[in-house]
């Protein structure tokens, strides 16, 4: 089952003194187990461009489509057995503590 994992900032990051996890180690583990499909960082919201078409007219605007304090800073596509496995993988990502992660299951085109 595939999940899109949004990597986002959070106004209240973890402040405990737990040892740091490193994103390279996370990636090596997840990729090594064949759980990682694709992923990257994305540039901040000020570099975003929003595109709409209304009544045949193209509307291009600067900035993200929602005003939010929390920014999406990256994404990964994970291929997991089930949600519990995706949660385990997400929980070991450094941004689970420095920010937050959101798991969205894929909705295959042939499913209702």
């Amino acid at each position, binding site marked *: *089952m595939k*999940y899109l994992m949004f990597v986002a900032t959070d106004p209240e990051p973890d402040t405990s003194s737990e040892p740091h996890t490193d994103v390279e180690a996370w990636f090596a583990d997840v990729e090594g187990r064949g759980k990682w499909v694709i992923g990257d960082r994305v540039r901040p919201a000020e570099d975003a461009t929003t595109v709409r078409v209304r009544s045949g007219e193209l509307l291009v605007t600067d900035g993200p489509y929602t005003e939010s304090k929390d920014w999406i800073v990256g994404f990964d596509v994970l291929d*997991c*057995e*089930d*949600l*519990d496995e*995706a*949660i*385990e993988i997400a929980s070991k990502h450094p941004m689970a503590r420095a920010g937050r992660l959101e*798991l969205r*299951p894929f*909705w295959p085109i042939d499913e209702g």
Partner: protein
Amino acid sequence: MAAAVGEQRLRIVAGLIRVTGDWELAEDCVQDAVERALARWPRDGVPVNPAAWLTTTAHRRALDLLRRRRTEADKLREVQALTETEGSAVDPYGGVYRDDQLRLLFTCCHPALPPAGRVALTLKTVAGLSTREIAAAFLVTESTMGQRLLRTHTKIAHAGISFRVPEPHRIAERTAGVLAVVYLIFNEGYSNADGGAGDLAAEGVRLAGLLAALLPTDDEVQGLRALLLLQHARRASRTGVNGELIPMEEQDRRGWDRAMIVDGMAALDRARVAGRVPGSYRLQAEIAAEHALAPDAAATDWARIVVLYDVLFDQQPSPVVALNRAAAVGFRDGPQAGLAALAEVERDERLAGYHLLPAVRADLLRRLGCAAEAAAAYRDALTLVRTAAERRFLERRLREVAASGTTPGDR
């Protein structure tokens, strides 16, 4: 017969969900088997092995439905295999049944599900309540509750929540999640006994018993079971003839369920695992045990109860625990000391709008003899209280302090 059916129902539902992955099919098949049993057994007599009869009947129905849907052959074989392994239930809480029931509980209480959905699904699938009964308990329409259940089933399917027991390193926190759902179910019934939710307290006690049978060495599971039994034992003395709540110090202790208290104390003994830091359910059960064992209200060991609240607060620094502690201080050292302890709690904004804050204050003022101030605090509490039983109790108290405040000759 109902009890036997109830025990088998859960085992069969859990097995069918594991094999078919279809929650509705599992429940329909068991419902169908139970209805057939109710129609046939009184006429033809109860079969030699009722468990096997119910299992076989439910599985046969599942096979019929799956064949009609042209389900793959290997799934059909799995259901047939299930009939062979489960046909003769020896210990309904052991072996393969135990695992299936745990899978069911952990899935119903998965943290990725909405909290109200966890409660509804646990009541439907584990406790076996109908959608209508659950709707009545939570004062919503049957269609609203049906939607809530459907939404929860859908999330399980779409988000890829597996029917499984969590990894060993997650068991403790996931068990805590299951306990929270059971405690919430119990409390809904306990605090709203004259609403539609009265039976939920008994369901909560039953669910805690099931968990304790499935996870006998978990001290917090035993702690929750002890807590619920010790609280539920007081149910007959908790409300008066007019449906008003009776506070603990005025309850007729002869009405307490002694057999249930004995069960609760036995569970508490099992929860007291040497060397383990007591968890919040065990600590609350220890407090409930102090009340259950005191021969009368005056003999209550308030010194020990305050100490227990202190330990509980260290673990779970919630303002509600602090409020209960202040009330206990009021009994240990008198109402003046209680008010001093309460002053600190009252600064916590999280308690704004919580009716028990002015209610505790009112009780302390009443016992101090400050009738006018007590009456004002009772009126504050009455604007916030939500259940009828508590409202009637607060109204009774308000009448009492109002009467004591206007003694003859005052004017």
